[in-house]
């Protein structure tokens, strides 16, 4: 129905249909309708709608409805005659106390019951408050509308959130939310989000975020297990099964990328379309993305591009214990990332103080040369870093840095040196999650750079045998079958 350009509102038309205006107003409206085809059409539509609604079929009860009702009513009347559960429990407790050899005085009984009740209530309250998410920090133009107070608040650190809170951010703003031990979430830029459900129980916290527009990043921890989190957007509903993911909503369309773990995504078809009763669902796994248009079924998830994947790396800032991370992609193509792109290191500020200063300087020197045209200079700096690393044998992030060195040596054209470093990771750190990547990298260098296909095949076969569940094993099997 079109908006009226004239001053007659739809409310006036609706009241006119119900003859709810004064006779004077009704006459004036009648005269207007005669001269305004647009309002006349709206009036006809309103009358038609009213007629159709009044003519809608009346429902009839199913067979046995009355019988079932009478049975239910008798049952309920009977249960009212029985003493309630509380009365029965009280009588059991008092008969137990009476059976004790030295009966408790009634004052002591009441005091004991009251203390237990207070203790229980305090425990419940503590558990509830402790698990509620709070603001870790906020920057820029962030405000929160609290429904219960009907007022906007400007949140500072430790601002406790409640169900129904609406968080609004303007350009460049950011807010971190933390539910202790369960998850960290970051909302940023131009965003509007409502904490539509917060339900705490023992050891669990169910959270629903309604994201109207903007960007949300969530990283959950091991303690999240048992809790439920959903992100509701105009186009879909995402239920979190894994750990780290990002959702972005713009113009009612939703982009969702998963860095780690898994997300179940249910698209929202138009409420009147036939699919609305049984909406389609897909699982988005680690390293995949999906773009859902409003009222359209979810497409099949695809692998994230390198650019998209990098945009999700911000999620690593949301982990409980910050750590050094080698920035290569996830899934079966991470070895390609390692060799064909300069791998970068992500070192959070909170960890920097635990890295020896010369080593940190050396890492930064290599990272800064990613676009340097002088390949030999890059190789020299990578070797310097290797020497520096040898000075700290027990360094916690040695594997990551070795892989970082291997990537840079390879990109500097030092294939054999890169091979040696990867071999060291594979032999010295067989239990590391980088071991499979190192094996795969070695095989790739033999195959493509040293033209030793038989050696490459042998390494791929060893990789499949040693790390059968790794994503590199899948890639190795594909390559072996193509090599014949």
């Amino acid at each position, binding site marked *: *129905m*079109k908006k009226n350009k004239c001053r007659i509102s*739809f*409310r006036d*038309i*609706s*009241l006119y249909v*119900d003859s*709810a205006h004064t006779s004077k107003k009704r006459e004036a409206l009648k005269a207007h309708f005669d001269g305004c085809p647009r309002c006349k059409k709206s009036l006809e*539509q*309103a009358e*038609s*709608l*009213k*007629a*159709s*609604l*009044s*003519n*809608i*079929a*009346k*429902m*009839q*009860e*199913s067979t046995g*409805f009355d019988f*079932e*009702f009478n049975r*239910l*009513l008798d049952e*309920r*009347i009977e249960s*009212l005659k029985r003493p309630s559960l509380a009365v029965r429990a009280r009588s059991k407790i008092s008969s137990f106390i009476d059976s004790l050899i030295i009966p408790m005085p009634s004052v002591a009984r009441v005091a004991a019951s009251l203390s237990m009740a207070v203790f229980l209530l305090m425990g419940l309250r503590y558990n509830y408050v402790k698990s509620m998410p709070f603001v870790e920090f906020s920057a820029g133009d962030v405000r929160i509308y609290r429904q219960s107070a009907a007022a906007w608040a400007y949140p500072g650190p430790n601002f406790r959130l409640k169900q129904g809170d609406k968080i609004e951010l303007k350009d460049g703003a950011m807010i971190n939310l933390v539910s202790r031990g369960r998850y960290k979430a970051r909302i940023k830029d131009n965003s509007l989000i*409502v904490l*539509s459900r917060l339900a705490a129980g023992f050891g669990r916290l169910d959270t*629903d975020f*309604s994201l109207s527009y903007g960007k949300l990043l969530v990283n959950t921890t091991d303690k999240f297990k048992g809790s439920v989190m959903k992100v*509701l*957007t*105009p186009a879909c*509903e995402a239920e979190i099964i894994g750990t780290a993911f990002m959702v972005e909503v713009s113009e*009612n369309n939703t982009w969702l990328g998963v860095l780690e773990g898994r997300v179940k995504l249910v698209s*929202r078809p*138009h*409420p*009147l*379309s036939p699919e*609305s009763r049984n909406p389609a669902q897909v699982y988005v796994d680690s390293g995949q993305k999906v773009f859902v248009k*409003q*009222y359209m079924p979810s497409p099949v998830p695809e692998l994230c591009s390198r650019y998209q994947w990098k945009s999700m790396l911000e999620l690593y800032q949301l982990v409980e214990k910050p750590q050094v991370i080698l920035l290569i992609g996830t899934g079966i193509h991470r070895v390609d990332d390692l060799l064909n792109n300069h791998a970068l290191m992500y070192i959070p500020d909170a960890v920097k103080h635990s890295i020896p200063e010369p080593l940190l300087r050396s890492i930064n020197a290599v990272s800064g040369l990613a676009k340097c045209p002088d390949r030999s200079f890059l190789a020299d700096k990578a070797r310097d870093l290797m020497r520096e690393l040898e000075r700290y044998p027990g360094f916690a992030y040695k594997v990551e840095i070795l892989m970082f060195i291997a990537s840079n040596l390879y990109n500097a054209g030092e294939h054999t040196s890169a091979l040696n470093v990867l071999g060291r990771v594979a032999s010295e750190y067989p239990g590391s999650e980088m071991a499979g990547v190192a094996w795969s990298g070695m095989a790739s260098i033999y195959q493509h750079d040293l033209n030793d296909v038989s050696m490459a095949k042998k390494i791929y076969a060893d990789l499949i045998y040693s790390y059968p569940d790794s994503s590199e094993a899948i890639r190795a099997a594909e390559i072996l079958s193509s090599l014949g």
Partner: protein
Amino acid sequence: MEDESLVLKIKQGDRQAFDEIYQKYKRPILNYIYRFIGSLHSAEELTQETFVRVYINIHKYEPRAKFTSWVYRIAGNLARNFLRHASYDKRISVFIKDAESGEGRHASVVENIADNRGRPDRQAQSKEEQDLVQRAIDELPARLKEAVILCDIEGFSYDEAADIMDCRPMTVGSRLSRGRQRLAKLLCYTGDE
């Protein structure tokens, strides 16, 4: 017999009087709840619960208010609670298709239902379209939905609906107009996007 005198008898424990009340109101209440929540099975359960509550709480009813309003209010509260606990989040706004492309469909759905009175040859089509109207009603917020069902489907006046909804008659008018406006827009959807 008048409702008020039947209520007096029920208060004295007369189950037959209650049966009379039950037979009189069960279908309107079933219809009201069904239109409210959109599921016949759950509507039947809630209708039964409504009458159980009417019987159990009859001593709380004071003849100051109309008995019909009291029963409808109990049914409305149950239906609202049911919707509140339903898992599907209805807060996501409904896409309103451009009226330009949807007017034809709106006109056909609405007018077909209006024209199908007493035409068995068009019952199948009518049922499909009525289902479409019900699904559009499902999309309305509870307050608007309540006004539309009470006034347009159940045929209550503004005053009677206001008594049930516990608000002023002109508030009913406002909610009804907003409900109708949304319904009209929703029914403009052509479904072939």
